[in-house]
C-alpha cells in the first residue's frame, strides 16, 4: 500500500481547492449523501438540459477522497447524457474495485486519479458516495442516500 498512490497530486489538489463547490439555486434536482462510517455528508445539485447535465455543483464536508471525488465528478459529468453518466459511473466503479481494471483510462480522464483507492478497501465508499448521490439526484429522489 502506497499512500502516494492514494493521495495523488490531483486528489490533494481537488481536496484543497474543490471545483464547483457550492449550491446551485435554482437546481433542477439535488440529493443528499451520507456515509455514517466517517461522517461524510454532501449535497449534489444538477441542472439539466433535456437529457444532459448542464451544470453540477456540490457542497458538504468529508475526507480528502470524498471531496476530491465529488469535485472530479462535477467536472466530468457536465454536458453528458444520463446514459453517458451511467457508463462513466460503471467505469469509475470498476476502477475503484477491480484489480485487473479493464476500463479505458483515456475515457476516465482525470477520474483515473482515483485508481489508488482500490488498494484501500475501507475507502471505496468515500470515493463512490458522490456517484450514488448523483444517481439519487437524477432519479429526483428526496431520501438521503446511505452507503451503509
Amino acid at each position, binding site marked *: *500500500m502506497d*499512500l502516494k498512490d*492514494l*493521495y495523488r497530486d490531483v486528489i*490533494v489538489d481537488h*481536496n*484543497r481547492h474543490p471545483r464547483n463547490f457550492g449550491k446551485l439555486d435554482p437546481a433542477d434536482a439535488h440529493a443528499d449523501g451520507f456515509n*455514517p*462510517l*466517517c*461522517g*461524510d*455528508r454532501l449535497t449534489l445539485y444538477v441542472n439539466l438540459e433535456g437529457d444532459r447535465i448542464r451544470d453540477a455543483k456540490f457542497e458538504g*464536508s*468529508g*475526507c*480528502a*477522497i470524498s*471531496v476530491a471525488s465529488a469535485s472530479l465528478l462535477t467536472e466530468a459529468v457536465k454536458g453528458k447524457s444520463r446514459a453517458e453518466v451511467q457508463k462513466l459511473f460503471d467505469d469509475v466503479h470498476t476502477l475503484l474495485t477491480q484489480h485487473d481494471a479493464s476500463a479505458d483510462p483515456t475515457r476516465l480522464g482525470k477520474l483515473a486519479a482515483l485508481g489508488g483507492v482500490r488498494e*484501500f478497501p*475501507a*475507502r471505496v465508499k*468515500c470515493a463512490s458516495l458522490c456517484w450514488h448521490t448523483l444517481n439519487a439526484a437524477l432519479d429526483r429522489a428526496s431520501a438521503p442516500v446511505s452507503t451503509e
Partner: protein
Amino acid sequence: MSAAIDSRTDFDVARIRRDFPILDQQVNGKPLVYLDNAASSQRPRSVIEAIDYYYEHDHANVHRGVHTLSQRATDAYEGARETIRGFINARSTREIVYVRGTTEAINLVAQSYARPRLKPGDEILISALEHHANIVPWQLVCEQTGAQLKVIPISQTGEVDFAAFERLIGPRTRLLALAHVSNALGTVVPVAKFIARAKQHKIPVLLDGAQAVPHSVVDVQALDCDFYCFSAHKMLGPTGIGVLYGRESLLEAMPPWQGGGDMILSVTFEKTTYNQLPWKFEAGTPHIAGAIGMAVAVRYLQGIGMARIAAYEHELLDYATAQLAGISGLRIIGTAPHKASVVSFTMAGIHPHDIGTILDTEGVAVRTGHHCAMPVMDFFEVPATARASLSFYNTFEEIDRLVAALEHARKLLA
C-alpha cells in the same frame, strides 16, 4: 523500547506486552501500535487459553445435566459470576446478570425496569456526552410510553453541567442514566455527586460503565448506583458477553426481559413460574465460554491491580496529551481536568478519515469517526474526530510513533 523510556515508570510494560500475542506483529510493514482500546481491547494469552481449555475439556450445557461435563461447565460459569461480583463489589451474585454487553444491559433496564413504570410526561435524564447505547434505548422506551428524554448539557471542555442537572431533575424524573466515562472524550464524570443528588429525589441511577471498568476501581456499593453496565471485550475479555449489575430489590421487582429455557422454574400452558435471580434474566443457552473468559480477564486485571493500571495509564495520557498538543493545527476535543486515557482530536485541513488511513500505513491503529456519539460531534461542530485510546499495555514509545505518523499526515495533506 529504550531504558530511558522505561525509567519513567516502574510499571513493567515490556513483560505485560508479552502476555498479549496479538501485539507482536507487523502491520503494513511496521510494528503494530494498537491505540483503539476504547473500541475493543486485546486479550492476554490466559484468556485465550482459558476459552480453548473450556471447549477442549469441559463444555456442555449449563444448569441442565447431571453428567460430569455439565457440572463442570456450570461450576465454571457460576464461578465466573462470583469473580465478577468481587471485581465490582456487588453484594451478591444474584445482582450479576450476564448479558451480551453494555448495549444489551441498558436495553434490558429500559424495557424491563423503565417501560412498565413510565407514564406520559415522565422524564428520563441522560447527558449530552452519552454513547448511542445510552441514548437510543431510552428514545425507544419514550416512544413506547409517552415519556420524555431530557438531556443534561456539557461544557466546551466536555464536562457534564451539574448546575443544569440540578435544574433538570425534578418530580417527573424517573431515572438518571449517565456514562461513568465518556468514550468519545475521555471525561470521567464525577458520578458520585450526581448519584447523591438523585438519591435525595429518590431517583434510581444507571451508569454506563463500559469505559470505566477497564481503567479504574469500580465499587458499585460505594457508588450507590442502582444499575451498572459493562462489556467484557473492552476489558480484555471475549466479545458477546457483558454484565448488568442491578440492585437486588429492583431486579426482583422487574419482569423477565426475554422468555425461554433456563429463565423458568416451571412451565405449563396455564402458568409459568420464573426462575430466581439472576437466571430470571438469562433465557436460553448463555455464552458460557464468554463468561469464563471474562472472569479470567478480571483475574488478569486484578493480578496487576486496577490502581496501578490507572496510575500508569494516567502517565501515558499526560504524555500523549502534551505530545499531541505540540502538533501544529491539532485540536484536542475533550479537555476535562479528570479524564481516562482517551485523546480525541482533529487536525486543521485533514479529515479524521484520512488521518486514520495514513496512520494505518504507519502501523498505528486509531478510531476515526463519530464514535457512536453523534450528538457529541454536533456539539463540538466537527463531523468526526480521530481518537487514540490507551491501555496499560501501550508504551511511551508508541505515543512517539503516533506523533510521528501525525506529522507525516500533516506534511502530506495539510
